[in-house]
């Protein structure tokens, strides 16, 4: 029997003072342990450094917000009146990309299908690009920054051109009359063009998955930014394009923030 320890019998059984087993080395296996092939860990205690940084961000954000709020008042127009339609009638700025898109195509495409596809893309993205060797690194690969830069440039030019083309000429101006072509087929073709051109171009350089995602995400993000700015800043009465500083009727797009 084990010597008297003052422990309960179960404790003595499990953590016996004099174990009856012996242990010996049976085999060497190759494997990864947490510290294999890693440099000295470059970590510091969260307290106080992280707490201090967060405090600085808290004070800084509050300060900027208070100063801005002292300088600019939130807008307040007349009492809501369902009988008097404002011209233009705009959604809040973060939905102006959608409202801009609605000007160019069938509402089902602009309001439901395209935004739905973007959300779907965001959700499945981490399951498409799973190679984690370049996680936590800005733009991933050596050519990443260049690709993102040129994709942004291309998208801004292309998207702006498409918006102006539709305003000034449009498919109608080219002789199309059927709603199916004007509202669905035409916009879909332009969409294929927008994504297809860069895809054809970068394919020759055998992109990694990360690089494919960089190009795809950048086209979507830059398009959203251009559409939002166009809708918010450049659309005036009748939702036509004007220079923001030269709107008819003294309309000021900034006053709707």
């Amino acid at each position, binding site marked *: 029997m084990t010597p008297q320890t003052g422990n309960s019998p179960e404790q003595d059984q499990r953590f016996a003072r004099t174990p009856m087993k012996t242990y010996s080395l049976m085999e060497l296996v190759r494997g990864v342990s947490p510290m294999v092939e890693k440099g000295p860990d470059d970590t510091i205690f969260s307290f106080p450094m992280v707490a201090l940084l967060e405090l600085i961000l808290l004070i800084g954000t509050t300060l900027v917000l208070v100063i801005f709020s002292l300088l600019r008042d939130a807008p307040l127009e007349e009492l809501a009146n369902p009988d008097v339609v404002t011209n233009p009638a705009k959604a809040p700025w973060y939905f102006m990309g959608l409202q801009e898109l609605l000007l160019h195509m069938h509402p089902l495409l602009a*309001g439901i299908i395209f935004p739905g596809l973007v959300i779907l893309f965001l959700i499945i993205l981490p399951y498409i690009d799973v190679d984690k060797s370049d996680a936590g690194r800005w733009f991933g690969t050596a050519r990443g920054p260049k690709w993102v830069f040129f994709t942004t440039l291309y998208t801004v030019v292309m998207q702006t051109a498409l918006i102006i083309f539709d305003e000034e000429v449009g498919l109608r101006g080219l002789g199309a009359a059927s709603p199916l072509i004007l509202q669905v087929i035409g916009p879909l073709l332009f969409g294929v063009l927008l994504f297809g051109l860069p895809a054809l171009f970068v394919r020759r350089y055998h992109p990694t998955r990360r690089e494919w995602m960089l190009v795809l995400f950048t086209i979507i993000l830059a398009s959203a930014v251009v559409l939002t700015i166009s809708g918010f800043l450049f659309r005036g009465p009748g939702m036509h394009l004007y220079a923001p500083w030269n709107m008819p009727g003294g309309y000021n797009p900034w006053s709707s923030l």
Partner: protein
Amino acid sequence: MSSFIQSVTQSRVWKSFFRHGWPDDELNRSLIMTTNIFFHLHPVKVSRRSLKATYSFGLGIIATILFLILTVTGTLIMFYYVPSTESAYQNIVHLQTRVPYGQLMRNMHRWAAHAMVLVVVLHMARVFYTGAYKPPREFNWIVGVVLLVLTLGASFTGYLLPWDQLSFWAITVGTNIAGYAPLIGDDLRFILLGGVEVGQNALTRFYALHIMVIPLALAGLVSLHIWRVRKDGGLAAQQAAEEPLRFEQEDA
């Protein structure tokens, strides 16, 4: 003075609040992180690399801070606001002209709301371009996508509350977009507005969503999101510091 401080920090009341000593050694710096509910969202130790301003730009933290500011200023505004089409607009005018610092409160609430949408989008872009959505962070990325949608929802529902021309027509235009969904579109819009057009029912629903449903969901999911950053091994910058890139390994 120091004996006074000592008698306070040695007292049973103090010790029942804080279960560790002054955080100036490694043990107590660990304990302060693990025994405090706010700090517990953080890891005990972080890599230097993940603290570099040019890695995260602090955008997630700033989004969290803006959410907190919105909660405080929003609560103050609630003291003066009744969500009725009869009084809402007058309440806002009253808040701006009669309540001390009322205009400032409203300004801060509005600008912080816009800023939060902007900052959350920028945060998503930073997470994307640093490849921080990759395993094991897939789930946290998806939590983020839900947070983005909730942030937009919070801002949109708040937009109606002043009940001026701007609110009325923006919500009319915005909810029309929901109406375009095939089959369920009209029903969706009807459920959102509690009717076929923007009126008292819409104001009631948007108010309930804006002050209760969405903030609660946000508070819960933001906590989950930040805690999950810790459970996934800190920011992804950490990983990059530990695991050399594939081509660097090949070079070696």
